[in-house]
Structures are given as C-alpha cells and as structure tokens.
C-alpha cells in the first residue's frame, strides 16, 4: 500500500473501449492516457457522444476497458467478476449521478445507509457514518423524508451523503448539476469544494464549461481522444 501513495489515484495507460454496432466499429475511447492524483479536483469535459460516459463507466468500474491498463488507487482493474467489481465500487467509488438515483421507497437515511449495508457494517457503525454524512450535507433533520418529499437540490445532497458515507477513495460525479437550477447547482458545487478542501479526490464529468471551470484541472474528451488541459483559463475556450 506504500506504493499506492506515490502513484496516482487514477491511471489510464492506452485504454480503449470498442463498441460494435452492426458492421461499424466505434472507438468510444481511443488509447486514452490519464493521470489523476490523490486529492485532485478534476473535471472531464466534452460534448455528448464524445466518450464521457464510457470514461465514467470505466473509472467507476461499471464497465471494463477492452484494451490498455487501468489502475485505481494502486489496484489494477482487470477482468474481475461482477461481485468483485461491486465490492471495489462499494469501497472506493462514491457515485453522484445526474438524476440522483435515490431509491424512492427508502428514506434519506436508508438511502445513505444502503452502501454500508452492502459493506456488512454493524448497525452502530452504520448509524455513525450515516449521521456524519447527512450532517456534512446539512440534511440530518430531513433523514426521515423520502426522495419525493425533498427538492432536487436536497435529493442531490442526499446522493452526495450516500457517496460520502462509505468514505470512498474518489467521488465520481456525472453531470451532478444537470437537473438543478443555477442557484442550487452553485450550492452543490460549493459542497464539492468543501470535500476537495477536506482532501477528497473528485472527478466531475460535465458538458458545461462554467461548471468544469470550478475544477483546478480539466480533461477534455472528443471522439474518444483525451487531451489534458492544465490551466483553468483554457477550459472555456475548448467548449
């Protein structure tokens, strides 16, 4: 594990993902090389259909690369079984989706608790971590509400709390502000900054240059090709 500290949090080496639709072959990712270090706040920007979702699926261990090498937190993500991948997602990744993806039948508390149940933590530990996570997004007093009883911004904060609760290696946010109004979106980005300042690694995927600008560094993706952009000012120009 000593080695992992020195290595990047996310390392892509010549990663390709190929889809075959009928006779045509689409390279959703084409020999992508990416490095994201521990504690970085990075945005991934590109128009729809550029390969953003594919990138997110591979980073999030929802899908496997066809070619190349992917290291997450020092661990090579190979041809693991579904259950092993589920375990990696559960321990290392905190997902935040565009449409929140909370379970409608569960309360805010139960939604946040769910990944901890899959970790088989004892009840007392779960309560501790859920309380901590909901407090950090300021929704502890709303814990008994179901998603339908919460506003969009509150739902997304519950989703962030769910990601937070497992204390993951990275937060992977896919258009987290896409379904929110500007003001709520800005508040949400504020939470990401807080997480970043507390030392978390954040990967923010978006098509919105203004949102992407919030990150210290950006990765641009276009037709499956990845281009690293270091400076914040350049971000707006590429969109």
């Amino acid at each position: 594990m000593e080695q992992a500290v020195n290595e990047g949090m996310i390392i892509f080496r010549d990663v390709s993902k190929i889809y075959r639709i009928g006779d045509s072959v689409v390279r959703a990712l084409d020999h992508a090389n990416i490095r994201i270090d521990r504690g970085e706040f990075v945005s991934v920007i590109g128009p729809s259909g550029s390969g953003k979702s594919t990138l997110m699926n591979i980073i999030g261990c929802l899908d496997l690369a066809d070619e190349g090498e992917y290291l997450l937190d020092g661990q090579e993500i190979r041809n693991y079984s579904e259950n092993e991948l589920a375990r990696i997602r559960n321990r290392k990744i905190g997902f935040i989706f565009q449409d929140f993806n909370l379970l409608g039948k569960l309360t805010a508390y139960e939604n946040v608790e769910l990944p901890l149940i899959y970790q088989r933590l004892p009840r007392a530990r779960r309560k501790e971590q859920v309380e901590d996570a909901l407090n950090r997004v300021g929704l502890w007093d709303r814990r008994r509400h179901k998603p339908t009883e919460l506003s969009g911004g509150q739902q997304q904060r519950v989703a962030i709390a769910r990601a937070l609760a497992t204390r993951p290696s990275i937060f992977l946010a896919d258009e987290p502000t896409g379904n929110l109004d500007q003001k709520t979106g800005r508040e949400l980005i504020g939470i990401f900054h807080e997480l970043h300042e507390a030392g978390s690694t954040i990967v923010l995927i978006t098509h919105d240059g203004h949102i992407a600008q919030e990150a210290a560094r950006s990765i641009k993706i276009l037709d499956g090709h990845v281009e690293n952009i270091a400076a914040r000012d350049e971000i707006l120009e590429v969109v």
Partner: protein
Amino acid sequence: MIFQSMKMAWESVISNKLRTFLTMLGIIIGVLALVVLVSIVSGATSRVTDVISSMGTDKLQVSVFDDSGKPLKMKDMEDISALPGVRAAAPLSQDMGATVKSGKNSASVQVTGTTAAYREIQGLSIASGRWLKSTDQENHTAVAVVNGTLAKDILGVSHTSEAVGKTVTISGVPYTVVGVLGEGSQMTDIFSMSAYSVYIPYSTLVRNSRTGGAINSFVVAAGEETLAEAEASVRGYLSERFDAGDDEENEHYYIFNMSQIMDSMGQVTAVMSIALGGIAAISLLVGGIGIMNIMLVSVTERTREIGIRKAIGAGNGSIMFQFLIEALMVSLIGCAVGVLASWGVLALISLISKTNFPMDPGVVTVAVVFSLVIGLIFGIYPASKAASKKPIDALHFTN
C-alpha cells in the same frame, strides 16, 4: 442483511397491495383446496371407521342371496352359535321405510327385527326398561325397544324411563315400548340413515311384514382372537348347507368381515386423499406460476433500482436474495392466509353438517412445505434474472 432484505421485500409486497393480493390468491386458493379437501376426506374416514369400530371388529355380518331352497331358520342360529370360534349369532331383518307413530307425531324409521343375542353382539346399552327377551321371540310379542332420540321426539318424553310402557304404532301395528337404548347406541350400523331406530323381535317382524321365515341376514360375534376361526367355521357351515363350495366368491352368501372392510376403507380413502390432494396441488402449482409471472414483471419494473443497488456495491447474491425473499414472502403469506381460511371453512362445514371435520395437521405441514418449495422454485428464475442484470444497462434503463 437478512433483516434489510426482508424489510425491502415487505415494502415491495405492500407497495402494490392489489397486485400482491391477486398473486397470493393463487396460493391461497391452492392451500385452501388442499387443506379443506384432505381434511374432509380424513374427517369422513375417521367418522366411518368410528362407526365400523363401534360395530366391533370382532363381528361378521352374513348375507344370504340364494339358499338353494334350504332357508336358514332360528334353529340354524343356535347351531351357528355353537360353531368353533363363534360366541353368539342373531338374525337380522331390517325394514328401512317403516313409519312409526305416537299421537300426532310420526317419522320414518329403520325397524330392525332380531333376537335377545343381538344386544350382546352389538354391545348395546339400555337406558331404561329392558332389551328383547327370548320369550318375546317365541311368543311373537308386539314389543319394541327404541333409541333415545325417538323416545324424545316421537313419544315426547323428557326422560327415557317415561317411555317404557307407552304404545307406538309401527306401520299400523301397535307395539308396547319395553326399553330405551342408551346414548351412543344409535350409530351401530353403517347402513343406518335415520336418526331413529326401533328393535322388535325377529319373529314379530316376520309375521307382520309377510317376509316369510327365512333368515337372509345375521350377525355373528366371535371371541377376542377367534374372528378368522369363526369366519372359517361359518363359511364351512353355510357352504355345506347351500352346496356352495368354500369359495369366497360364491353366489349363495357373502360374509362381511368388519376388519376387512376397515382395511379396504382405509385404502380407498388414502387413494382419495392423494387424488384430491393432487388436484389441489396442481392449483398450488398454478399459483406458483402466477408468482413467477408477477416477479418477472417486478424485476423489469425495478431494473433501474437494481442498477442503482449494483452501482453502489450490491453483489449478485444480495440482489438475488432480495427478490427470492420477496417471492417466498408472497407464497408463505398466501399459505398462512390459506390455512386460516381453511380453518374457517372447515369450522363452517362442521357447523352446517353437524359433524366435526378437524384440520388435518399433516396436510397443513404439506401445504406449508409445498408453498415454500413453490416460492423457491418460481422465485429463483426471476431473482437470478434480476441478479444477472449489468449495472450500466440497468442504470440507463428507462421505464
């Protein structure tokens, strides 16, 4: 984990009450049919075997079809009583459709003509008065012994002792009541359909009903362990008398052996239980298919939920377990409701038929085990279908 899965399953079960109820209905009806049918068969069986054993399994009932012109007389009863293994023998002649009258009351009764020995053979008890005597037989006396129900309903007495000495007319002929049977003596004959029974001397019945003196039916009591010996000696006696040969399947007479009847009765009802139970089990199977059908719909509807769960770390086992618990919950709750409903239906049937049909604990066990197995079998496929969904496909699924 188990508790969480059960809680989720429960929430899913109650979130669509009508659908869940309709799905359960298949199991409820299946269990209801299984438990009620089998309980009724076993209730009826135990009732019939009670009747047969109250008749005594140490008895033979003999019917003569063809006496070859040499009819049995009272003298033969004495001879048969003296055969090896035989304790006693009494002639039996029954008039099913006689009308008994007393004052304004009348009813259709079964009149049995027999002798003094009959009481001992059938173990009848006397509540008041006396049983038929051999002098009644010899003198063709017009005396009758009635059962308690008849004494109360037709003679209108509140206590059996008041009936002794009263007069009843049976098919127009007046008889003096000399005795009343005790409780529990009515169900002495499986062929008895009436609640009322009357016993009169055999000779009196023969004289009054113009049937001639031939004895075509009689009962034989054997000793404790001598039933087979008694049957063999009666068979020998009758075969010699009618030139019939020792064959059991002869055309002259037939010997009903009560323990044999019990045995074959047991076989018949066992077959009936299995046949009816089998039919009911088929409806349970159909109920199981209903569960599978609704579970498959539920899996499709909840594809996105499955995707979310998998994304945040649910393994295939957890997903599978959750859906399997749900199927089991539907089938077991259905089974519980079915058992409760069966209990109600059986209580109602018992009330209406005035016969006790208790719930057969064996069939309840079978119903529970069967429901469990059905829940498992028909839950496994939808559950594994849910578990095998790929998280990305499931996440991007839109209803």
